[in-house]
């Protein structure tokens, strides 16, 4: 109980909880769920982009895209490691992903249909991720906060690359420009929904706020994203597909239409265009790789044994 007092004191002082510190079970569980879901999103999120590596239209873009998808694998690694500091292990978390018990971000259940989607994902999806994640760099749990510092740095790099892809398309042939507009049309609303349901309908939020895991409400972050992104669309010369979009000169903020949250709930429930495909691919990679992981474990054990024998 002294530990719990100290936990609350640390939270109140905006300090950092570290793995060996005492923490309420709810705090631990909430963090595990959130970090795991975040890690899963990184690795499922590799798929829609990896889908275009073989077809990237220039070698430079191919290299950038490969590096980006590889970064996501790296983010997955840090995040699983952060979750492991809370007493779970990666293999279990992966099992929970594969069995559908844990979720990943619904945005990755939309297909990447053209090369412009790679630009849109970088610009909008990574952009939204950054807005969501920057506050997490100050999260009360130390290992998660530190992982997020590194992740955010790379994400903002990715976001610029995505914007640059679209900028090039928008200044290219009419076919390229149309491809960019089409990508924005398809990714805009799903991106807005990355911030979750509207505050009125959001569960879990209050406790997470009190624990210093969450720092801003869904709607607040969504607004921040719109305010940041609309001027960038103007720079690209693209039209944001929202007739209700209006700039308020006084506040310097945009008002915008309500996304179709029914769609979000459907996709979360598994009824999105790519839910089955993404999970099936993931499970296949995992199952196809089982013999490799087993071999590595068997080999390591043999080596260990040899070392012991030679020591004896």
């Amino acid at each position: 109980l002294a530990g719990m007092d100290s936990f609350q004191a640390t939270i109140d002082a905006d300090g950092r909880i570290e793995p060996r510190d005492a923490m309420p079970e709810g705090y631990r569980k909430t963090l595990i769920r959130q970090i795991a879901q975040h890690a899963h999103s990184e690795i499922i999120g590799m798929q829609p982009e990896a889908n275009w590596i073989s077809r990237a239209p220039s070698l430079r873009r191919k290299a950038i895209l490969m590096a980006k998808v590889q970064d996501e694998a790296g983010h997955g690694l840090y995040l699983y490691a952060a979750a492991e500091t809370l007493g779970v292990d990666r293999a279990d978390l992966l099992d929970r992903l594969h069995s559908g018990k844990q979720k990943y971000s619904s945005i990755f259940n939309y297909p990447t249909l053209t090369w412009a989607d790679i630009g849109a994902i970088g610009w909008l999806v990574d952009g939204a991720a950054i807005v969501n994640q920057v506050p997490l760099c100050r999260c009360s749990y130390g290992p998660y906060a530190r992982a997020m510092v590194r992740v955010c740095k790379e994400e903002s790099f990715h976001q610029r690359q995505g914007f640059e892809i679209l900028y090039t398309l928008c200044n290219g042939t009419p076919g390229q420009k149309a491809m960019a507009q089409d990508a924005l049309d398809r990714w805009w609303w799903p991106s807005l929904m990355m911030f979750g349901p509207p505050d009125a309908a959001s569960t879990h939020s209050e406790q997470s706020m009190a624990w210093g895991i969450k720092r801003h409400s869904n709607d607040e972050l969504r607004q921040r994203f719109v305010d940041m992104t609309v001027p960038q669309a103007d720079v690209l010369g693209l039209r944001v597909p929202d007739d209700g979009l209006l700039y308020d000169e006084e506040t310097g903020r945009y008002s915008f239409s309500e996304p179709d949250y029914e769609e979000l709930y459907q996709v979360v429930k598994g009824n999105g265009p790519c839910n089955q495909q993404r999970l099936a691919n993931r499970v296949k990679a995992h199952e196809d790789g089982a013999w490799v992981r087993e071999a590595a474990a068997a080999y390591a054990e043999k080596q260990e044994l040899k070392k012991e024998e030679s020591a004896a």
Partner: protein
Amino acid sequence: MSDLFEYTLRLGDDALIAAQRTAEWIAAAPQLEEDVALGNIGLDQLGQARSLLQYAGQVEGVGRSEDDLAYFRNERDFRNLQLCELPSGDFAHTIARLLYFATYQHLLYEELRMSSDETLAGVAGKAVKEVAYHVDHATQWVLRLGDGTEESHRRMQSGLDAMWPYTAEMFASDDLVRRLAGIAVDPSTFADEWSRRITQVIDESTCSRPESSYQHDGGRDGRHTEHLGYLLAELQHVARSHPGATW
């Protein structure tokens, strides 16, 4: 077509096609660490391809860029080894190819650092460090898989055997390489050393070195397997669909 252009294309196409195959593993590897590692290797290969194709374009002197060479040549104009274009197969097949290919590249680039052509020497100087890591990575996996479980041993042996008929092509010497003495490396000169290194790894892995067998050739003359056409269809489709576009 100048000898130097042709020679640079050979090395550039090897790296490009190898990168395309390596990248197929990204988001599909047996574990996350391997997504990262194969991503690194693919990026190294792609980086080498870009430097070499860019230089090939300069040498040719008619204004073709690395992208013109990668996206707007037809199958018969590609000069890569058939080994590089073979389907990736299972993880053991991929590792077997990487062992064979990276060891070859390592020996090649080691020599090429001394080329009297400064650009090639420069590319080789950077690349030699990269491929040393590829060799090491492949070696570690050949050992783990060869001396892991029964299944992994069987698969590793099958990968080594399947890729073997495509290895002799790496060491074929020809007039072009001889005409470029001092600039190019004659790969026949390091065939024995390659064989020594490969054999050592395979022996240690408890696998058997494949028996000599029918050896395919033709890649350097643009005679490929039927697999390359499909690889290029994918590689080139977007670029070919928007002629004249910048990306």
